[in-house]
């Protein structure tokens, strides 16, 4: 786990302010990466306890947010690795083969979405969350960090210890899978 970065002059966050501001963000990032509520809770607990112990080394929320992102990703990856070791399955190498793009098939239906900025209803959000949870782990990591969290490819590559071409390849394949998973819902009347 990386150490917190050096401090600059700004107020030290309190445990309560950290909890209010960051606990939901840590939890939802971990849940999306791990695809499991109970695992996300364990990871959130680990991360919060770590950060509260190191609070006096931070000055300001911006620095803390960046560090927390990285620590949460590392904790989620470590958690999954431990679980995979226990279960003796799910290796990164194998995962590269399990998300081949669907072959071009029949006619493609136009999605029922407006040209403007989309709006996401609760029902649509639930469909999307389920589709994310069904992505294989290594693809889900890249996908969540890139398309949900909005991190640049370079940062994702650094966090996950991958090359940028590998990040781009996984992201593209995950997007194709997500697009195909969402198609039945957005081709109909679900989309706004």
């Amino acid at each position, binding site marked *: 786990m990386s150490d917190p970065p050096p401090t600059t002059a700004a107020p030290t966050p309190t445990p309560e302010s950290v909890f209010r501001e960051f606990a939901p963000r840590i939890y*939802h990032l971990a849940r999306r990466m791990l695809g499991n509520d109970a695992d996300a809770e364990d990871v959130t607990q680990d991360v919060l306890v770590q950060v509260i112990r190191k609070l006096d080394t931070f000055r300001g929320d911006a620095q803390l947010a960046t560090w927390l992102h990285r620590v949460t990703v590392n904790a989620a990856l470590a958690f999954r690795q431990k679980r995979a070791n226990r279960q003796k399955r799910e290796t990164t190498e194998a995962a590269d083969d399990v998300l081949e793009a669907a072959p071009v098939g029949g006619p*493609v239906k136009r999605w029922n979405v407006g040209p403007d900025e989309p709006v*996401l209803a609760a029902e649509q959000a639930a469909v999307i969350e389920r589709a994310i949870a069904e992505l294989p782990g290594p693809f889900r990591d890249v996908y969540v960090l890139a398309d949900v969290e909005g991190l640049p490819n370079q940062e994702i590559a650094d966090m996950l210890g991958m090359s940028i071409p590998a990040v781009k390849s996984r992201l593209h394949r995950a997007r194709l899978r997500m697009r195909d998973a*969402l198609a039945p819902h957005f081709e109909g009347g679900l989309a706004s």
Partner: protein
Amino acid sequence: MTCDEFRQLLGDHHAGELVVEVTERFDFHRTGCPDCGFYLESYTHTVKVMRLLKCGPLPAGVEERLRAACALGEKSERG
């Protein structure tokens, strides 16, 4: 350009990383292939809509358990 080749380029197209010559072939295929035109629209929408996912509050019960764990962590830190 085939439909398969078109779809393999969607990521680079979305990132604005296609070179001019490939962009021309990409656009030529799109205008002549309604299926790939629709596919591109839906791919783009898939990317856009993810940024709308909300973080949301902690689920019921989770906040209480996390607060208790953090309080324990603080206590053990103080010795």
